[in-house]
């Protein structure tokens, strides 16, 4: 009964919710309840790049994402936060359909990238992925030269024009704040770079084909503070030019780099607000608890 009441009041008055017990909603989610996410009204009137509607995902019999609906605004950095195993990576990988590689995955619902459906029948997945760049948690440079790594997306597209490739290479490396460090060793193996450089190389590769969106899955988790701050600076520079969806475990990082933040819990979207609001005046006590580390 109590739970039903919560559901009813979700959109109505956040103040009322705040008075609720510490992590009542999260417990309820753990018990299998579904809640309407608390979405900040500001987010509903923005230019949308990615629109997720009623997205569910199952690994075999286990459901990993529950009816996620959200929109990612253009030119902004959107952070996904939430405890480990809550489905952040799964959601991110659903955007460029990397989950197709996992045999047991089943989905329902849809996403739209600039109005084009991602999961409709007959979508060319390969063409779709070319419209997005992805940076993985662990840097994954390819076993080839730095140059070839950066222009890989163009190579597979069959681009042969040397001048154009050179230009893209330089532009992407500059974009990833790596140019000065590697401009003299472009033909050397990318595997000889340091971990932080490798990660920035992956960013350069991700932006080489001028994607409509950048997906980053904990891009700094394997890096030291200096390399991390470089990547964060980089994200800051890319803001406005690119739409970025970034998964992070680091609250400070989310607060520093993102415009909007989505808090996920056990496969559900719990709260989605502008970052400033979310960190300073969250709609839900649960979010506050998570952010302040009172919930673990």
């Amino acid at each position, binding site marked *: 009964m109590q739970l039903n009441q919560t559901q009813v009041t979700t959109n109505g008055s956040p103040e009322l919710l705040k008075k609720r017990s510490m992590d009542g909603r999260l417990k309820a989610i753990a018990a299998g309840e579904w809640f309407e996410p608390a979405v900040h009204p500001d987010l509903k009137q923005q230019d949308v790049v990615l629109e997720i509607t009623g997205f569910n995902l199952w690994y075999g019999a286990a459901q990993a994402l529950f009816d996620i609906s959200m929109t990612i605004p253009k030119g902004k950095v959107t952070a996904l936060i939430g405890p480990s195993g809550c489905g952040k990576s799964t959601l991110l990988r659903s955007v460029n359909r990397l989950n197709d590689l996992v045999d047991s995955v089943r989905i329902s619902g849809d996403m739209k990238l600039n109005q084009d459906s991602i999961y409709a029948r007959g979508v060319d997945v390969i063409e779709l992925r070319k419209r997005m760049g992805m940076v*993985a948690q662990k840097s994954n440079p*390819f076993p080839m030269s730095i140059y070839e790594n950066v222009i890989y997306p163009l190579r*597979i597209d069959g681009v042969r024009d040397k001048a154009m490739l050179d230009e893209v290479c330089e532009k992407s490396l500059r974009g990833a704040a790596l140019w000065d460090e590697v401009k003299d060793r472009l033909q050397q*193996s990318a*595997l*000889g770079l340091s971990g932080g450089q490798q990660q920035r190389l992956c960013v350069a*590769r991700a932006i080489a084909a001028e994607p409509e969106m950048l997906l980053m899955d904990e891009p700094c988790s394997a890096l030291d503070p200096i390399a991390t701050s470089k990547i964060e600076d980089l994200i800051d520079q890319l803001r406005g030019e690119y739409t970025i969806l970034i998964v992070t475990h680091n609250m400070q990082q989310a607060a520093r780099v993102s415009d909007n933040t989505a808090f996920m819990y056990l496969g559900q979207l719990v709260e989605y607000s502008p970052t400033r609001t979310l960190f300073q005046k969250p709609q839900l006590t649960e979010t506050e608890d998570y952010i302040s580390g009172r919930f673990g």
Partner: protein
Amino acid sequence: MNSSKSSTVATPLAQSRVAERVRTGYRTKTRTALAAHGQPYVWLAGGMLALSLAMILGLLTLILVRGTGTFWPAPVIQVEMVDGRIHMGEITRHSSYVPREELLLALPAQAMGAARALLAAQDGVSERFLIRTGNFELTQEHFNWVSDFAINSTSYPQWALLFERQEWGRFYGMPEAFLIDGERVATTPAEVWGKLNEHHRDVRRRWQERRALETHEIGKINYALEQARLQVRGAELAVEAAEGRDGKGSPAQQKALLHLGAAQAGLAQLSVEADAEYGRLRGEINRINQENARFEILVTTADGRERALPLAQIVRAYTPNQLSLGEKFGIYFDRWLEFLRDDPREANSEGGVFPAIFGTVVMTLIMSICVVPFGVLAALYLREYAKAGPMISTVRIAVNNLAGVPSIVFGVFGLGFFCYLMGGTIDQLFYSAKLPSPTFGTGGILWASLTLALLTLPVVIVATEESLAAVPSSMREGSYACGASKWQTIRRIVLPRAMPGIMTGMILAMARGAGEVAPLMLVGAVKLAPELPVDGYAPFVHLERSFMHLGFHIFDLGFQSQNSEAAVPMVFSTTLLLVAIIALLNIGAILLRNRLRRKFMTSQF
């Protein structure tokens, strides 16, 4: 009742024991048990490694010592026997034995006493020596055993000469005279030796020229004639075919007849030209032969027989008992060079093994070129495309078991499938003019390579599969995320990354294939094949030709040779060579792999 009682008694006892354990701590011993350290197992493992190392090193040392010793020039000993016979030659080995009484009784009466005294002093054991005495055309023997009790005296004659000849093996003797046009131009040993050195090089050069004429020039004519003959035969077959199809007198038959006429005319024309050319070459060869026949060296053997050796027949001559160390090394390396560069002589027991080296290397390379793409593609499908399931597991097990099939079975299969079926079909289609003598329808280097490729396929497949599985999935995902298709990912990311592993598979396959002999005997390795699979006649690469192989050469020398005593040292040298070649091929492949590894795998964190 009883039991419950006993349990009530036992419980406090057990409790107190546990309490005691807890109080004193679980650790009661002060030292770790030997078994817990695992020391005995370390010793066992180390001992096993030492044992295998010792076996490998022992084998390699044996091969190295015997293989390198073969060509060292030994001194020539002259042995006078108590029965008056004289042997001269090189001691090749010796052994101890207890002579039978008959042997002693066969000795001349006056020598018997001394022999018995000698034997008594040695506890009845005699030392015997195997002397390579050569001079086969005179004595019908290459080797002689002599026992110490039957020896009267030994000496190392200063002017003993050793001749290695084109035919009949070695000749040992003392220089008597040097003959030019039958006239004695020199008679003292030193002069004869000087004359020999003066003329030998020229004579041998002429002899090489003559052989080049015989093989290359005449070979060229024969080849052209053979081609023309084949054209005639082909035209005849075409006429027959046309007759069978359209009947006699049909336009097609007429046309074929015309072709036949042209071909026949061509052949006739060529025959005339060839005859003229033959005549010219014959004249040339005769002239060289006559020139060479003028030079002979007259040699007396140890038992006093005289023999004139034509200089042209002498491959190498030296004075074994007067050699300085430098000269010995000179002869040693010269013999190695001959071994590596020349064709075999004397039923393979002398001369070189160049055709076998060439055959082995070419076969191994063709095999590698065939097996790697095959194996890699098969492994790619198995690992990347096929849906995992019982079917794929079965295939994988079958592939692994294929590696356990006896190699001779592959030989039989290769003979039946490649030689007879595929080769036979190719002959029918493209070489019908030559039938019934087969072109591809018999053993040849191509079929041998393919057979061995089949044999080594599992090695490549298994190695490739493993290296494909070792490519991190993050790399693949990175590629997919860039919008690469599966094939692009495999070609640009997975394969380069897996390349070092694939090379490892190739190295293993090469090592396995290059040392294999049994199947080769069925599909094309032969005792003697001076015609190399690659030469100067179009189309330059003759993959249908049978070939010589070092492994088979070893078998042939060791077990099929007429003159097995002389062949055995060559077995060791050939083995050494084979091991060296396999090692070289492997080192080459390993260097290549390391380069690839540096390129694709280095990573630092």
